[in-house]
């Protein structure tokens, strides 16, 4: 009696994950095709009894031109890695930054505001530097949100019917990001000092890279050669230097900083043009020299 019973249970245990697996397989093949049109289409395919819905989809619909790696059915990942309670304290602490600066006091007040104790600041092993990092990461998130809200569409030139180049978009984004610093401008030098401490340099640099990469991605840059690196480097350099200018900018609406950014962007394009010019010139001279040599009978 005992044996058959065992067998039945064993089978049941075996069959359940199998069923789950098959159901998973069908949903998996549908989810990555995440744009709305395709989702609608996928409902039709599920009606088909068997077979591979994936190939069917691919054959009947032309693939979309650009697809993101994330499904729109999932919420966006936050731009930072802090937990919920950490985020609560940090966002509350940011409200105290204009008066208290990027200090432990601002953190403590943030903890008190969100119902934590003074001692709960222990949640941040890096102390006030966590506050700086959170400021940077959250502003980066806001920058993306502003583009999604139509930052480019609201621009005068676009309203007038022009289209913006990648370079113009980049400039627009840099200035937009710098203007986010307006209210904490007087505290930013302290933050820069914190970021330049030896133990904080790696994280500061990676955050700067994340920002320049984000700016270029949002501007629609799609370079896939060595210019990927040079573009990010030059945007990072422009942003970092204009940030320093911004801390001493007393003009209303950061107009001086804006002019500074303009000049730097011009400089970098000028340098780029000169480099390509130099490359062309050298290439021309080289080919001339080879041609000259050949005409003299050299075996080149």
């Amino acid at each position, binding site marked *: 009696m005992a044996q058959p019973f065992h067998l039945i249970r064993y089978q049941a245990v075996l069959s359940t994950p199998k069923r789950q697996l098959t159901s998973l397989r069908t949903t998996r093949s549908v989810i990555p095709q995440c744009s709305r049109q395709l989702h609608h289409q996928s409902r039709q395919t599920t009606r088909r009894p068997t077979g591979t819905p994936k190939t069917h989809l691919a054959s009947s619909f032309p693939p979309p031109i650009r697809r993101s790696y994330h499904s729109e059915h999932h919420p966006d990942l936050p731009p930072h890695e802090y937990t919920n309670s950490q985020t609560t304290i940090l966002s509350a602490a940011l409200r105290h930054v204009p008066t208290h600066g990027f200090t432990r006091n601002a953190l403590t007040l943030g903890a008190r505001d969100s119902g934590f104790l*003074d001692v709960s600041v222990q949640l941040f092993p890096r102390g006030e530097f966590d506050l700086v990092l959170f400021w940077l990461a959250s502003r980066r998130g806001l920058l993306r949100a502003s583009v999604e809200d139509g930052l480019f569409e609201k621009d005068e030139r676009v309203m007038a019917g022009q289209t913006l180049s990648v370079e113009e978009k980049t400039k627009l984004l840099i200035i937009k990001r710098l203007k986010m610093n307006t209210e904490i401008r007087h505290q930013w030098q302290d933050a820069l000092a914190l970021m330049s401490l030896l133990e904080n340099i790696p994280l500061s640099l990676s955050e700067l890279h994340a920002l320049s990469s984000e700016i270029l991605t949002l501007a629609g840059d799609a370079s896939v050669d060595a210019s990927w690196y040079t573009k990010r480097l030059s945007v990072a350099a422009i942003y970092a230097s204009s940030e320093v200018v911004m801390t001493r900018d007393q003009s209303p609406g950061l107009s001086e900083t804006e002019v500074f950014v303009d000049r730097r962007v011009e400089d970098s394009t000028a340098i780029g043009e000169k480099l390509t010019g130099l490359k062309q010139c050298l290439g021309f001279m080289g080919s001339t020299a080879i041609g000259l040599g050949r005409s003299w009978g050299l075996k080149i």
Partner: protein
Amino acid sequence: MLSRSVRRSLGYHARRRVSIPEAPYRCFSCTRRAQAESKNERMTHFGFTNVPESQKESMVGAVFSSVASSYDTMNDFMSLGIHRLWKDHFVRSLNPGSALPSRETDTTGKGWNILDIAGGTGDIAFRMLDHATNINHDHETRVTIADINPDMLAEGQKRSIQTPYYNTSRLSFMQANAQQMPDIPDNSIDLYTVVFGIRNFTDKQAALQEAFRVLKPGGVFACMEFSKVENDVFNAVYKQWSFSAIPLIGQLVAGDRESYQYLVESIEQFPSQEEFRGMIQKAGFLIPGRGFENLTGGIAAIHKGIKPLPPV
């Protein structure tokens, strides 16, 4: 045919023999009482030997009663004075005391309520009070020193006479078992510290649960304990030192080899950084960042956990 049937019957017998209930275990060399004890009671570590849980407490008690008077001298000899640096760093990183005056809207109250477990001699407690007073100018923060061992507490009381906190409301002593502290109400403590003590607890998980109970939401559990050295070469040197030099120093300075043998063995038995972090997490605490900080290559480690706010 014949041989097959014989084999089958043999196999049948063999199977049946298994199903016959085993004769109850009979030990003729030990007494009935010892047998009953070992069956009903859970065992725990006492250094490298296994002892029943009920006995560990008194055995640890005996060790610390015998080392109480020479505790600080011995620590200096064993760690070459480094334990003072660790303790200073521990207190500095916790930054006890409120530097900001509390506002009217704050519900946190004035000063911190600190519970220092296994802090009999007051090492950590006096440091924390000094830090709160001198660095943060907070004259409200108070510390309760709890220890299971009256000899260690007496040592702390004797030392507290030298400090400005003697006979004030900022310092109090309490004899208690960290696994069960009925005298301390729920949600009443800001900061719970246990420094070089949790290793000796009989049931560490129960102590962590109790810490979770007494802490206010947002309160911090901070623990400094000997841990596992990460570098293999350094580990070899360290093990050589702890297993041969420390019991010897104990014999020469304190005249008590056994107690110090227990100390090094209990260090060896303590879980690694990651395991202990898992235990803190299991008790319900939030872990900030990596959850631990190694000191001197991992000889000691500082663990922290934060009690989360109740879900709204």
